């Protein structure tokens, strides 16, 4: 699947300040390569998360369009775009984003249960194998409040991968992880890319460039290759 951004930009209106318009992302063209791990690096506030959210169908661009296999995401009704995000995208937002009312296994299976889809043995087995691959299979019945930051992050990764999505978008997935856990996750992303998925990871970390198939730099809202 080809995820493409055509001449997109994003401006935010500020309530205070000399200039009331903040250009978060300048006009940009971008295509997420299939079967590759793309890393987009940049300092905080450079616009990389904004770009990722526009690509994910979560933030409508001020100009331009985002297409998935030629379908304009933002021309779709919210319900259709949401369903598309649910089935074709694996998204890992910044920070800890598990639901604290559900245990690890329930959190991983959320993309199914949110639409009331029955969870069969196949999905449960898939969830368990993902958790195993991420080294947290023994925590499947544990509540999030009992998990460390790294474990929580891995739960989010498992949740993003549970539907076996073609597009994987990760915002600072290794931000608060130690070297060992960072390595595990980057290897997992590489494996996903080898499986033919389009993987985009945005980060401010500099020493992970070697994992990337394609590397981009984001600076003051401008995407540099």
């Amino acid at each position, binding site marked *: 699947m080809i995820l493409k951004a055509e001449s997109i930009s994003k401006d935010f209106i500020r309530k205070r300040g000399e200039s009331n318009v903040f250009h978060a992302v300048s006009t940009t063209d971008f295509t997420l390569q299939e079967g590759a791990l793309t890393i987009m690096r940049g300092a905080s506030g450079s616009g990389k*998360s*904004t770009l990722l*959210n526009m690509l*994910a169908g*979560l*933030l409508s661009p001020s100009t331009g369009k985002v297409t998935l296999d030629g379908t304009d995401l933002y021309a779709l009704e*919210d*319900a259709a775009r*949401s*369903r598309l*995000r*649910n*089935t074709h*995208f694996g*998204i890992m*937002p*910044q*920070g800890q*984003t*598990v*639901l*604290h*009312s*559900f245990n690890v296994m329930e959190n991983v299976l*959320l*993309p199914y*249960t*949110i*639409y*009331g889809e029955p969870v069969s043995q196949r999905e449960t087995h898939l969830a368990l194998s993902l958790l195993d691959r991420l080294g947290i299979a023994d925590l499947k019945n544990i509540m999030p409040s009992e998990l460390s930051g790294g474990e929580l992050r891995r739960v989010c990764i498992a*949740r993003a991968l549970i539907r076996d999505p073609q597009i994987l978008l990760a915002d600072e997935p290794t931000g608060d992880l130690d070297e060992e856990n960072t390595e595990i996750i980057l290897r997992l992303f590489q494996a996903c890319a080898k499986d033919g998925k389009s993987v985009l990871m945005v980060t401010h970390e500099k020493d992970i460039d070697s994992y990337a198939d394609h590397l981009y730099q984001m600076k003051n809202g401008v995407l540099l290759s």
Partner: protein
Amino acid sequence: MSFAESLTFKQLSRRPARTAALILLAMLLSLSIMGGTLIVSGLKSGLTSLESRLGADIMVVPYEVRTKTNLNDLILQGNSGYYYVDRQYLSKLYDGSIAGIDQISEQYYFATASSGCCSAALQLIAFDPETDFTIKPWINVSYKKELQDCEIVVGSQINAFPGDTLIFYGVECRVAARMDKTGTYLDTSVYTSPATIEKLIENAQTKQLAAYTGNTSPATHASCVLINVADGYTVEEVLNDINIHVKKVVAIQSKSLIANVADGLTNVSGIISALVIVVWILSLIILVIAFTMMINERKKEFAIVRVIGASENMLTRMVMKEALAVSAVGSLTGSVLGLVIVSMFSGLIEEHLSLPFLLPSVFGLAGLFLTAFLASTAAGALAASYAALRISRIDPALILREDH
């Protein structure tokens, strides 16, 4: 259980204090609606019942009962009437001197004593079965036969039932039937024939028991004459005619008695209705604030669900389900409480407000219950709809970014 239901249940059970507070608010709302409307409805039913039970256009009473206080006492409080007029003064009502009388019937009020001679201190009302048009129809509701000698019909608040025997001045009187509840003094009265009253008076005199009759009897005196006006005449015409031509009595329009009660009822109903509206609005505002705060506190959770693929409508449904669950539980509890409290204290309400009070029928109660339940549940849903609308419009990317 669907995800939305599961999330709703988990959220509600995970924060018991917050859930309990929301349920309490919904409960207060439905309690006020149920209690308020039940009181107003009970008072209106009491007034309607009173109108029906008076059943006559004009009441002719001895002149000394002319003041409104005395009349209200007589009609509403059930104070035993010691008022009698010699029947010779009433002859003009029967001889055609007064035009426009369609139906006419006399009643004789007689008080029993609370001493050993009588089962209880009650007001007995003797009516003439031949002419009566106000009491008999109500007796026929529960008793189809003519009253026999020493047979009585008791009001709904008297603790005696068909087949029981009550003793008045040494005479055993068999309870033939009970009246329906009216919410007026008629509930605490006993109805019988003039012949039975004559027998009680005679027995009291023979046994030298203290019974105040002022040397009167149903044969020679009357406490009240009830008149229905014939077609073609106005009540005012007949009433004025009686007041001019019949001595020792005063004719009163029944509606004027009810008007006092109706005025009181209008005032009380107005106050209660205003209070219900104020409570409803206040509860609605508090619920809006409570739901908005709750949603704000959980906006990250909703943002996560949105990122995973929930649509705006799904978020709205999730919030509304949670609000409806809380409101329905609170409304049900409040409606039941309102019904129980007003039913338990209906006597106290009647006494305190000095207005006739009659609980509606089972169907009426069911209707009020349903109305209170639906109105407060709807208020909960309405209060949550603002929060639901807000949460459905959230920008998940921005919220997760703020949180980070």
